[in-house]
Each structure stands twice: as C-alpha cells, then as structure tokens.
C-alpha cells in the first residue's frame, strides 16, 4: 500500500480515519510495510506516527497543526477497554517568555485545540503493541462550555507565568488544563521570569489536558 495523499477536506480525512478504525497496530504496520517494535519504550511516538502515515499527515513534529491546510490537529488517545483515557494528553510546550499581551485566542493551546481529530487507541499495558486497536475517530471542537473552562484554566496559569510565579504552579492548578514539566530529564533548563521580573532558569513546561477532560470528549460519542 502506498502512503495516502494528504486529505483535502475534513470529510476526506474523516473517511481515511474511519478506514482504519478497528484495525490493530500490526494491521497498520503490515499495510505500511514496516515492522512492529516489541515495546514502545524507545519509540514513544511510533503508534502516533503510524496513524499519521495512514492519514497522509504532513507536518511531523512542527508546531503547526498536523493537517495544516485543514487546521486540524491529530491526537491519538490511549484508552482502556471501557473507553476511559489512560493518561493525560500533551497539548503543546508552554512558552515561558515572550508571552506579553498574548490572549487566549492567540495562544498555542487554543490554536492546537480549535479542531482536533481524536483517535482513541486501545492501549492497556497488558495488550502487546501489535494487538493494540485503533478506535473510531472523533472530529472535535470545544463546545462553548469546554472552551470557557479551558480558557479559565489557561488564564490562571498564564497569569502565574507572567507574574513570575511559575514555581507555584503544580499539576493541581487548573481544572482541565495543567502545566507540567516537559523535558527529557530534570537538568534541562529554559529561560523564564522570576518573582521580581528578573530572568531565571526553569524546567521547560508543557500544557496537558487532564483525563477528566478527554473523558468528556470520549463520552460525547
């Protein structure tokens, strides 16, 4: 099978995604002509990349939507047998400087989540990688309520970053959106703003959606 062309419309993308719903990762690997790794410890993004391949995604890991032309972000979402999310979902890296004047509508979080194609993957730890099942795609935009809730969390977190209180942000800050360290290891540092406004070095952070939020999305289907 040759790699599908980048879809030209939402319908085409959704059709491609529905095509592979119910297939296992080994099915997808076979179609793409590649080997399934024993475990994903060394290739964390393998499953996601495989799905991207089947959907004709172009952007890779660039900070633009996976389907840039369509403005759609692709997110694979590990779930258990009952369709419950297994982990929080990474949204994007948090900018700790250069955020002056940024509004919700300009924020990467908003842009990333404006339109998302969620692909659930049945990925319980006990299930071997090859037998993991691709779920039915959900093309989603936040409802007014969801957007308002995300915005409230985002504003609370951004206020803290802007006012130099980044060290006081914990994973418990925010109802649906949380800020957590996002780095290969804990010695990595990036520039941030200190309590007095002075430049400081801090651990890079990323925005994550809590499970409660992705559960809402899954339950809407």
């Amino acid at each position, binding site marked *: 099978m040759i790699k599908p062309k980048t879809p030209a419309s939402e319908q085409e993308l959704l059709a491609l995604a529905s095509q592979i719903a119910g297939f296992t990762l080994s099915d997808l690997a076979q179609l793409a002509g590649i080997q399934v790794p024993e475990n994903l410890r060394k290739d964390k993004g393998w499953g996601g990349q495989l799905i991207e391949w089947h959907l004709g995604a172009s952007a890779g890991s660039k900070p633009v939507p996976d389907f840039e032309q369509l403005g759609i972000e692709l997110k694979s979402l590990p779930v258990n047998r009952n369709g419950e999310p297994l982990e929080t979902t990474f949204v994007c890296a948090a900018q700790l400087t250069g955020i002056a004047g940024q*509004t919700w*509508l300009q924020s990467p979080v908003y842009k990333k989540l404006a339109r998302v194609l969620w692909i659930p993957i049945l990925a319980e730890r006990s299930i071997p990688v090859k037998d993991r099942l691709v779920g039915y795609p959900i093309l989603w935009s936040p409802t007014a309520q969801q957007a308002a809730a995300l915005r409230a969390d985002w504003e609370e977190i951004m206020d803290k970053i802007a006012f130099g209180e980044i060290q006081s942000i914990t994973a418990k800050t925010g109802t649906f959106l949380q800020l957590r360290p996002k780095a290969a290891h804990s010695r990595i540092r990036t520039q941030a703003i200190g309590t007095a406004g002075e430049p400081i070095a801090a651990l890079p952070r990323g925005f994550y959606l809590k499970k409660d939020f992705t559960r809402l999305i899954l339950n809407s289907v």
Partner: protein
Amino acid sequence: MPIKILSAQLANQIAAGEVVERPASVVKELVENSLDAGATKIELEIEGGGSRLIKVRDNGVGIAQAELALALSRHATSKISDLSDLDKIMSLGFRGEALASISSVARLTLTSCTADQNCAYAASAEGREMTVEVRAAAHPQGTTVEVADLFFNTPARRRFLRTEKTEFSHIDEVIRRIALSCFNIQFRLSHNGQLVRQYMPASDSQAQDKRIKAICGAHFLQNSLKINASYDGLELSGWLGSRRAARNQADLQYTYVNGRMMRDKLLNHAIRQAFSDKLANEQYPAFVLYLTLDPSQVDVNVHPAKHEVRFHQARMVHDYVYRVLAETLEQDDIQVAAQNEYAQPSIADTVDMANTKDRETSPDLVNDQVSCYKHPPQKASNEYQKSKAEQVPESRPVHAISTLFPGQKHLTGVSAARAKTGQTDTQAQSSHLYGQLIKPSSVLPQAKQTGYNSNTASDKDWLYLTLVQEKWLLFNYQGHLHATAALPCCEFLAKNKLSRSLATGIVSQPLLLPVAISVENAEIELLKTHRDQFEALGFAVKISPSNKLVVQKIPAVVKDFQINSIIFKLLRKISEQNEQLNSHNWLNALSQAVAPELITQPQHFSLWLNDVSEQAESQLQTYLQQNSVKMDLNQWLDS
C-alpha cells in the same frame, strides 16, 4: 469580659493603627486631602521630625463651618456618596477615616475657610466620645491642619518612632512622591523653621524636567528615556531610567496609577522584566512612571493606605507595561550602539589629525586643517544622531503601539468577540447534536422504565412480572398469571422495534473502540457479497488486513448489546438461508440475533417492552393473547 461597643476614640485608634504608622503617613493623608480639595499651593511645616508638629496649609476649596464637625468624625467624607462611586474613584482618598484616625492619636486642629464665608472656623475633637468643638478663627481661603504631639496617648506606637532626622526623611520622601504626581502644584516643606524643599509649579515639559532633576537627580534625568504611549484606554507615560541610570538600591522607583502613588508588585514586576538581563544581580531600575486607565478597570479599595491596587485585567496591564518599556529600552540600546558606531570614525579622525599634526610644520595650517577635518564629520554625525534621536522615538512608538497587542482587538472589540463565539457556538451546537443523536438509551428517565408496570392497570393491560429461567416470561393479565415463551416474545419485540427504527431511518452509531472478530473465510465472503444489506441495517463492517471482521458502526438501537454475538448470529442466519434474502428476511435475521441479548439483559428487555407497548400497544396485546398460556393458580391453590 462582657461584650460591649467600643468608644468612638478607641475605634478610631484601632483604625489609626492601620493608616497612621508614623509622621510621614499623617503627612501623606493630609496632603492628599489638600490635593483632593483642589489646592494649587501646599505648605508644610514640620517640627521635631513630625512627632511634635505637622502643619499642612493649603489654598483649596475649604470646608464649610457646618461640615467641620463632621469632617472629624469617622466614616465621613465628601469624596464618595454611594457604592457605585467606589468603582470609579478619581480622588486620592475615599474611606473617610484619615482625620478621625489622626485626631484619635494626636492633638488635631482643623482650621478652614471657604470662598463664601466671612470668617474661618477651627475645629478640634477631644475625649472618649470625640466631641468636636468649633470656634471662630483667622484664616484665608483654604484649610490648615495642625497635628501636634503624635501618639501622645499611644505610647506603644511612640516607641516605634525613629530619630527626628529619620522621620523627617520619610516625610521628605512622601512629599517627593507626591510632588512627582502633580507637577502643577507648588510645595514648600520646612523643618524646624527652615525651608528644606520648594517645588515650583511646572506646567511645561522644561519645568517638569526641572522638578524631575530636583527630585531624582541630574544623572537620572540625563539617562532616562521619556515614555509616552497609549493603547486601548491604557496610557503609560513618564521617565524610565536606562540601564546607565540603574541603582544599587531600589530607592528611585516611583509608580503612579491614575495619579495615586503605588508600590504595586505587579507593576514593579513588569518593569523589572522589561530590563531582562540588562541589569546585573544587585542592580535596581530607576523610574518615574504614570499609568492612566479607566478607573472602573482598577480596584483601589484593597489596602487602607492604598499602596496596592487590583487591576481587573491584571495580565493585560502587566504585559502592556512590560512591552512598552522593553521596546523603549531596546530602542535605547540601538541608539547607543549607533552613537558608538559614529563615535568611532571621529576618533579615527583625531588620530589622523594627530598624524598630520606631527608631519605638518606650520601650526596655522594645522589649525586650519584640524578645523576643516573636525567640523564637517562632527556635524554630520551630530545631525545623524539628532535625526536618529528624533526619528526613533517618534516613528517607533507609533509602530510599537499599533503592533503591541496585535490580537487584543479580538478581546476588546465586542463585535469581533461575538463573531468568534458565534462561530464556536455553531460548532458546539453541531457536535452537541451529534452527541445527542447517539446518547445511550440507558439515560432515559428511570420512571419510564417502570412506567409499563406502574400504569394504572386496566383490564386490557398485560403487566410484566418476571422472567423465569430465561425461558418463560410471566405476565399478569386480567388478574390471571400468563406465561409466554421468552425467545419468541423477544424476537417479536425486537422485530417490532427494529422495523419501526428502519422505517424512520436507522441511526448508525460509530463504536469508539470498533470490534474485531475472527471469522471463517466463508463468512468473510458472505459479508463481502452482502455489504449493502449490512449497511442498510446500520452496520459498517470492514475486513482488516489480518482477515478479521471489523465492526465500526452499529445500529444505535443495539449499542448496549454484545456486538460479537449479534454479528455471529446474524451471519449464521444469513448463511442458513443464503438464497433469496430480501429485506424482510434480513430484518427477521437481525431480530433473531438480537432476541437472546434481550433475555440476558433484563433491564433492556424492560425498556424494549415499554417502548413497544407505547408505540404498538394493540400488536403487543394481540401477540400475547395468541401466544401465552393462562395459568390458573386458583386451581392449584384450592386443591
């Protein structure tokens, strides 16, 4: 100790604990009163560092005789009258506490005369109940407040006072701060009979620079950048000391919000952030900055001394201040770099000149040459600098302001915001509809489930009682027990409900986690030939590369059942009667596949029975009448 009302004096003394910390705080309250009274000239006489005497005289509107007594009582003010005023405060004070508080911890005399009064009156309050005594006095228009013997009756506070010199330096600082907030007002400050400071009214920018120089020093003035920016109701102006004006203490930091002096953490944070790494560790920026915004956007009722405020849009204000200042500092760096660049050639020129000087013998010629070498480039570079200096601050801020918050219009422009939310609303709506379409039926109100049972039993009604051993269904009909075979009854129910669902257009629901089923090759062939019929029933079925059957969508009515077993049974039925399958047969096959599911899931049986009895009551009755056996219990019980 029994509970009792505090005396007016004690209540005021407690309030004074917050507001009156030291002589300088008295001075601040009194001078702010003078400013609120519209004074243009304020004179202060201090004795003994302010603990012996603080005398503030102004030429403001004055207080009428009748209001003098009120002026000294607590919670009395002319500055606001109702709660809505609190949202848009432009006066410096509003709490109506200062004079009462001060007069409870010092000997206070208030002397005042208004424009239309013939003579002035003096008032003072004394005793536990703070009774006010008013008497005639001599005074021009305006008000004088004399505060003598501060903390005479609160020795604990008195012990906190420092030396005369220290306390006076605090007063001096307060006056400096206030003088920076109102350039058009004249201040005279004297200590122990000696004039210490005099700030003349400054209406033009030259005179303002002069006041800045007097208060902040010449070094600051020379190395400061003039700020003047506004955007969307926010206005920031003043003097920002460049990195060359940075200080070793945080002692030259003056911020004002709507003319009120502030020590606001948020603003200081924004200012420090603007300097980023331009300052070393132990260096502090110097600045005199004025932020003006709609008073309804800021809450000043946070701190009794009003050192802090709350901005409604805190991060917007913070980021605006940061952006304006960072931009200005950036321009300054560019300008300084440009100056250095142009300074270089002129140094080269001097070297050249030196060489020439060495070589040339005639001093006159040298002088001529020097002058002709020296002047043109100097002039050129000066002009360049000048034009740059003019260009940069003038052209850049405009640009800076227009791009400051490129997206903020979306936020503040109501129409834009509406348009945006409108869009998301429709999106939300569509996804909501989608959600509604495929809501699990188990969320139906509980009452409906039992509705069939609890219906007022008329003679016609078949009341469902129970399922026996998954084989028999028991009903109560006309007072008699009736039994019917479970599986055929469930098939009837399934067929009835499914046919209605097919007639109205079957809703096909995607499975979040599609079901993959291992099947025989023959069955795969079967599926391939009958794909259309499967789809007509609401199933979306695919064959995976590993030859499994993948069920992606199912009819919404059967979503609570075991999909695997329904598909298996469906396939078996179809293969049994492979020839001449019409839509009727397909419906029968599906009903037969679903029926066992109803038996194993009693709660869904109830729901389906309920539904059929509501939608097709007579058909159900006919079916039960024809297919049930009456069980005459009396016969058994009697014998």
